[in-house]
């Protein structure tokens, strides 16, 4: 028995020792890995700033900044989006543990707007001066309803377009060049006609799942779930209900697939061409590439009836920070047009600063994966079309119920009945 103890101990030790050397070497090699906490800057810097992020890679820019500002070192923590927001929320409510700088995603940011005491008002540091660098609608998302309190500086955004499979369109006997597809699908009515042709000729669904097409329609509405007073308006306002009913109709026509977002079958479908289109934002470009590295058939057209925005973050400075001025100085630099252009070129993060869109080196960016299309310009045009829509503190919960309702319709629920259920489900959540 003693022998086996020591054997096991040695084994475990060996595994970990091997592991230690392995992991350090891979950390050096891989910069973009999601799982690192990295301290950039010298250890004896006067100011140490902690920086919480998800799904964004600012490392090379941070290195650049730290080189020019040796008194600052920056701790970058990268985790998944859901963990990130959970952690941030818990740290803010507990009153300690929050970082000096934290990203907040567009669907989460309204939740924090009732808690101005937890954040620095960036206007105190002169944020008004840089406001004009950013798209109006993006800036407004980071402000309080009255515009007096600035929570965050915009980072990247997610203007939307219509990704489509050239080969599926061809198979259905439809025109398949981007300009032709723009022409072909100007309205949602056109889109449904194409859907019917695709289904008839190829047996394939038009779109991956109810959620993406609903999102696209929802984003075009001038108002969504809540008005600016925080009241639930989906019962009285026609837009969300129309979008819901419309998508439900498409489900019943079999135009819509069952490939849930981020699921493996979704990625598989992307790669196999199981669905003809995917309404998605600028950052979806990389998602498609990663899921379907060998597919050469994805192209990008404009969104019928106008683009919306899906995703993007705002950089905030929690009140717990002891170095808000240094943090602001860094964020101001990091998110200035020049740096946003670099982030786009290096990591595909779409800039929220319109002056970048005018630059030649931006406009001319093409992507071979998408048949050499001028991708930057397509999404820049989309970004300029977007208008600000108020989301509301409980946006996330309300949206989740509607999306769940759409899947229930897919699974056979009656749309009218489901709509009633959705409203009561949302109301029950709001009463908490």
């Amino acid at each position: 028995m003693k022998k086996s103890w020591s054997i096991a101990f040695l084994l475990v030790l060996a595994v970990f020792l091997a592991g230690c050397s392995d992991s350090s070497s891979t950390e050096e090699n891989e910069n973009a890995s999601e799982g690192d906490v990295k301290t950039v800057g010298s250890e004896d810097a006067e100011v140490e700033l902690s920086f919480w992020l998800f799904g964004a890679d600012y490392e090379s820019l941070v290195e650049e900044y730290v080189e020019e500002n040796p008194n600052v070192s920056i701790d970058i923590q990268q985790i998944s989006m859901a963990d990130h927001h959970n952690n941030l929320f818990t740290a803010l409510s507990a009153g300690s543990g929050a970082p000096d700088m934290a990203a907040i995603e567009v669907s989460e940011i309204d939740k924090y707007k009732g808690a101005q005491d937890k954040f620095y008002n960036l206007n105190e540091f002169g944020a008004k001066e840089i406001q004009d660098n950013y798209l109006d609608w993006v800036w407004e998302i980071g402000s309080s309803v009255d515009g007096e309190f600035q929570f965050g500086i915009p980072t990247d955004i997610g203007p939307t377009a219509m990704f489509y499979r050239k080969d599926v369109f061809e198979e259905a006997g439809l025109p398949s060049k981007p300009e032709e597809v723009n022409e072909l699908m100007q309205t949602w009515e056109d889109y449904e006609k194409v859907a019917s042709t695709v289904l008839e000729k190829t047996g394939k669904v038009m779109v991956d799942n109810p959620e993406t097409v609903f999102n696209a329609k929802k984003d075009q509405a001038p108002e969504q779930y809540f008005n600016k007073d925080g009241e639930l308006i989906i019962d009285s306002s026609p837009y969300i209900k129309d979008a819901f009913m419309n998508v439900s109709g498409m489900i019943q026509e079999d135009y819509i697939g069952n490939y849930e977002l981020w699921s493996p079958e979704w990625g598989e479908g992307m790669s196999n061409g199981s669905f003809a289109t995917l309404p998605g934002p600028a950052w979806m470009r990389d998602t498609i590439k990663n899921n379907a590295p060998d597919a050469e058939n994805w192209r990008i057209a404009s969104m019928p009836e106008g683009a919306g925005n899906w995703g993007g973050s705002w950089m905030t400075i929690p009140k717990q920070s002891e170095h808000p001025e240094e943090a602001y100085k860094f964020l101001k630099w990091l998110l200035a047009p020049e740096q946003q252009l670099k982030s786009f070129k290096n990591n595909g993060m779409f800039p929220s600063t319109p002056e970048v869109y005018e630059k030649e080196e931006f406009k001319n960016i093409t992507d071979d994966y998408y048949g050499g299309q001028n991708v930057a310009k397509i999404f820049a045009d989309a970004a300029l079309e977007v208008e600000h829509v108020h989301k509301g503190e409980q946006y996330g919960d309300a949206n989740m119920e509607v999306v769940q309702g759409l899947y229930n319709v897919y699974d056979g629920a009656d749309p009218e009945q489901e709509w009633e259920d959705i409203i009561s489900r949302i109301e029950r959540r709001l009463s908490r």
Partner: protein
Amino acid sequence: MYSEKVKQKVAKSSLYGFLITVSLASLFPFYWMFVMATNSNETINQTPPALIPGSELVTNFQNVLGSIPFFRTMLNSLIVSTSITLGVVLLCSLAGFAFAKIPFPGRGILFVLILGTMMIPPQLGLIPTYFIITELGWLSDLKAVIVPGLMHAFGIFWMRQYIASAVPDEIMEAARIDGCSNFRMYWNIIIPTILPAFATLGIIVFMQIWGDYLWPLVVLKDQSMHTIQVALRSLMDDRVKDYGMILSGTFWATVPLIIIFLLFNRMFIKSITDGAVKS
């Protein structure tokens, strides 16, 4: 007599059939984990799916290393589990000894209270406990998991049962009359007698802490401070689902435990058997 023999043969082979089927079913997920961990996503997504190991063992694991600090989180889990195990075994045997062998006022009630705490869902105090951890400044510190983990009602219950049956009262009495202090008694008599129980409880606690993930998720914010469970879970959060990579992480996180278990299984099963019989 002859038919009795046939009957026994039938009984025997059906018994073996049953046990072999169950064993295979029990082992299959391990095999399958390995199959997935060695295949590329493309192979995995084929219909019918891959059922034999592929050649992507290294690639998949490299992807895991690119996504989570795998070895660091394994080490964290090892540190957390080992310190809690040692602490729990000592504290619980001490308390179990007191409850089993030392008469003191309120002993019964206090013991029932401990049993009662086993009924409390740990989620009940989750949010306030987080506040305490932040007050102590233990956020993203392994202490935040270790210290609350030392509180182990089942361990006390189990140790009490074990000590009550494994240590005869006569020895206690004798020692007492010899003037042996309670702590000496614990050190010189109880510990040597209950070493198998240490092993059993130790392994049970180790497994339990190793597998814990809700609490570590809440208090260990830095990714480099995650335990392996939290890290594995975050593999499922990737927006591009690579089952080869996900199961590679799961597989390699499970292998060390399997090795340890296979080495110690006799001791483990023997001691859990002794313990169960004696309680």
